[in-house]
């Protein structure tokens, strides 16, 4: 799966958590360009996308990723609490929206649920 966040500490800790807690294989990107390149290279089943990506915007990146890999499940995460972010995320094609700090159990349940119901029913990647 692809994790995109400009905060390196969070990115690494989330990667470790996903690999340890769910045996997910992760690739980590800190900006939009790297994210698109990794999506094309690794074909992840799930993308976890932060809204605020330094100079980039995760909500603008989301449709690009969807066009790159139409079957990829996208989960948007943010530390903001404005409802507009979740609305925009779903309008941009996100399958789920989570608030930081993310509850690990909730994240795993959400991912499992989405993968079970995804069109190709793909497992971890």
């Amino acid at each position, binding site marked *: 799966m692809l994790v995109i966040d400009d*905060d390196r*500490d*969070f990115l690494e*800790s*989330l990667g*470790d*958590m996903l690999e*340890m*807690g769910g045996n997910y294989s992760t690739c980590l990107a800190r900006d939009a360009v790297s994210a698109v390149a990794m999506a094309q290279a690794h074909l992840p089943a799930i993308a976890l996308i932060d809204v*605020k990506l330094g100079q980039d915007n995760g909500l603008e990146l989301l449709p690009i990723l969807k066009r790159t890999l139409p079957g990829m499940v996208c989960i948007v995460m943010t*530390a*903001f*609490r404005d*409802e507009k972010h979740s609305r925009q995320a779903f309008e941009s094609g996100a399958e789920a929206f989570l608030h*930081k*700090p*993310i*509850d*690990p159990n909730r994240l795993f349940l959400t991912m499992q649920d989405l993968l079970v119901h995804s069109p190709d029913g793909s497992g971890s990647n």
Partner: protein
Amino acid sequence: MNNGTEHAARTLDCPKCGSAMAPLSLEQVGFEYCSACEGVWFDGTRLPDGAPLENDKALLADVARTLKERQGDIQAFLDSAPFEMGIKDTEGRYLLINRHTEELYGRSNEDVQGKLPSDLFPAQDAQKMIAAQQRTLDTGEVSSTEAGDGEGRWFLATYFPIRDWQNQVTGLGGIGLDVTVRRQAELKIEQINTELEALVEERTQELRAAQEKLLKQTRLAMVGEITATVSHELRNPMATMRSSLFVLGGLVERGNDRLDRALARLERSLQRCDGIIDELLDFARTKEAVLKATMVDDWLSGVLNEYEGSGDLQIDRRLDADGACIQADHERLRRAVINVLENACHALLQQTQNPHPAPSVVVSTGIEDGRLFVSFIDNGVGMKKDVLDQCFEPLFSTKGFGTGLGLPAASRILQQHGGEITIDSEPGEGTTVVFSLPLAGMV
């Protein structure tokens, strides 16, 4: 003008011997003849002794006639004047008033002769007239004052000295010009000015209040922006801590009680930090609420499900507003509900009654007088009156931890919805919180 005292009538007795005098013939023009002492008197003055000869009599008659004519001329002059005129003695008593004055006040010369201003005018106005008269008598110069007659008429009284042939002041002349119209205009202007000043003061107060409100809003908006930014920046490292905590929990050997407790404490502390940030955001939020039509019971059920799922609290639901629709900002109203439920949970934990009642939180909805009511009733520890009185004050808290912003934020959120929050509590009995919201309609 008031009634005054009568002026003493001039005696016809001889000032020298006291005998009764007879008016001289010759048209009785003011000469009297005392046959006892053979004196001729004119206006209190005795002419040289000796019985008047016929020629003298004729001369005197001419003089008297001339004087009379002059007196008549003076009276005619005074009576023809289109304003008040009068003559007073050196004590300020009226000797003579002109016809205009007589007609204006409905009083004759005889009525006012010998009277003082204080006999005829209101005390305050008479005082001003007497002072002006005295200035003229003291200095020999013209003086003026404005006075009223107590019946709405105002006049400018001007006094000047009357001097005899030796330049001695023997009396006062007075002229009164009617200034009622001007005075009324001045009073009107004064009244308008007073009203204008009051209006300006009122507008100034409104402007000041609006300015203060704007400043407050600006400050709140700034606080809101800062809080949003700081919250976001805090939540990112907290997210790192949480995921790192998960990784730590997976890496270390479990079964060590102390380690497990430490990890659980860290997890709880992170959740508490998250809750504090939520409360700060709720309170500092200044943007307009985004209202949308909401079926209350359905929406509230979802919020209660979510809350029950995050903890151990079981909520007794009595939702009885089927079909009721309100305009609500879901996220904000959800925060208000969560804040009240959090307080209820805390109150249940603090309950020390013996026997301990089964913890209970009842959430009910209902409609009354076109408004929707949502009640939260717990049987927790309750609040004393002094605590209850302060529970909506920001930063007031009875919890061991907490920002004291939960209820103030809930109150603000209800206000943003055109509603209000009320709270009632009894120590040891529990607390009832009620949201009252305008009903948008029934579906």
